[in-house]
């Protein structure tokens, strides 16, 4: 009996030693782990975590509404008046922008027609602006530790690593796989993150604010004719390029930036300060990697800070447009044209 007990004790210690050894080797060898164990566990947890996530999210949302300070009548009237003026200004801006876009697309369409006449084999690829497939998905759980900004989404479809996820839509169940290599993403209203791992029924959504999230974007400076802002641009005078200070115009180019998640927001360091970037400017996707079209809303500039040891550059802080904490319905967007 005593011998058996000793054998059992030794055996359990050996199991533990083996597990620890495997864990250490796994940590040192595969820095980002491997997918199949996570893909296997996720669907098993999904039913319970899905329900609890919705219940807890609903409770939190209602509690926040109840605890918020009520508006007094005067403040409410003032906000309504301000909003009305802003709405009119925004509509005018949108109308102008759409008008310019229509002219641009008409020119583009004419050029494409000419190209298509010469190269008929590209006809199909150039007919639409950005043909893509939207995969509805629902947030069903979050990361287990507070160090990452990760949510698990249920997609009903296998999606590739590197796909972005967007907000606002429905949940469906489509149990077939998407063929092909990792693809890109597009949102209906705003970009919220990207898929970093996925299985047949679930996927891991890395939010914009995750420290490991990086994206190239454009800053679209808001043009307000009532409030001129000065920018410095390089102009050719004779055979020299000289910096010239002038007011921002409606047709000035967007500013490219590299954004990285910073837990609460996104940041872009070392942006040239002479571009006149201000709080409230829009940040949109760049579209260079052909995974997303240009101009998908990411967020707005929430702070512009001068770099202490490099005063000619600024650090941008960008607040995501979507409310990431209470995110529920999302879309995974997959372009249909091979290679973008």
């Amino acid at each position, binding site marked *: 009996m005593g011998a058996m007990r000793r054998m059992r004790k030794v055996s359990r210690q050996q199991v533990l030693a083996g597990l620890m050894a495997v864990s250490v080797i796994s940590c040192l060898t595969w820095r980002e782990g491997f997918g199949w164990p996570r893909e296997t566990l996720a669907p098993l947890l999904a039913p319970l975590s899905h329900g609890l996530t919705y219940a807890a999210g609903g409770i939190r949302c209602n509690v926040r509404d109840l605890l918020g300070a009520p508006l007094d009548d005067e403040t409410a009237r003032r906000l309504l008046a301000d909003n009305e003026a802003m709405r009119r200004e925004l509509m005018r801006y949108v109308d102008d922008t759409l008008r310019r876009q229509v002219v641009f697309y008409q020119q583009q369409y004419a050029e494409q027609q000419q190209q298509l006449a010469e190269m008929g084999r590209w006809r199909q690829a150039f007919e639409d602006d950005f043909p893509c497939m939207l995969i509805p998905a629902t947030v069903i759980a979050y990361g287990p530790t507070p160090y990452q900004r*990760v949510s698990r989404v249920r997609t009903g479809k296998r999606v590739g690593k590197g796909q972005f996820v967007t907000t606002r839509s429905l949940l469906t169940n489509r149990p077939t796989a998407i063929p092909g290599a990792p693809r890109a993403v597009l949102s209906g209203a705003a970009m919220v993150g990207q898929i970093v791992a996925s299985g047949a029924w679930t996927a891991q959504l890395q939010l914009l604010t995750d420290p490991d999230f990086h994206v190239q974007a454009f800053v679209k400076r808001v043009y307000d004719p009532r409030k001129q802002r000065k920018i410095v641009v390089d102009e050719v005078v004779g055979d020299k390029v000289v910096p010239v200070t002038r007011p921002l115009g409606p047709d000035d180019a967007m500013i490219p930036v590299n954004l990285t998640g*910073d837990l*609460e927001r996104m940041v872009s360091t070392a942006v040239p300060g002479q571009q006149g970037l201000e709080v409230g400017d829009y940040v949109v996707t760049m579209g260079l990697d052909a995974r997303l079209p240009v101009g998908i809303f990411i967020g707005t500039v929430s702070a512009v800070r001068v770099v202490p040891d490099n005063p000619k550059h600024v650090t941008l802080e960008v607040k995501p447009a979507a409310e990431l904490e209470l995110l529920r319905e999302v879309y995974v967007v997959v372009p249909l044209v091979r290679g973008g």
Partner: protein
Amino acid sequence: MRWLVFIPLAVLALIAQISVGAVLRVGVGATGLSLSVDFLAIVAVLVTLRVRMATDAMLAGWVLGLLIDLSSVCEPIGLYACCFAIAAWAIFQVRSAVFADNPLSQALTTLAFCLLGHVPARLFVNLYVRATAVMLWREMIQVLLLAVCTAVFAPLLLRLLRRLNRQIVAQRNQGR
């Protein structure tokens, strides 16, 4: 140690962690830090304070850590398993000096477990996996917040889970 009771409890703790625990995180201003509770650490402390063998405590810690690893992304599998197992061993070594049913002892034990379990893991992620220490200090503060919050809630949850003590720990006449 009754593993058939412990494993469902661990899975339930994980589900609570990734759903309720994550939704109820409270942000600390605009710092990106949050007040949150680690339910898995509380279960680990519950087991570590009750089991008779250090091996059982370490195995329980390893299982709970593995569940965290399997629910994370972009981090190595086995990291939290190792860290929680070692933290469980450390708590097991000092548990004879604490009163297992005393709320203050439970809180301090949980605080120590969280620090021992999370600090090495975050150091490894920042210095080896990401190979950059940009987020290191912020994550260390986050570990401290997590440990304090978990320690505050631990006595309450351990009291609620008190009835499970007998179910988790095998009686002496049932063998070790």
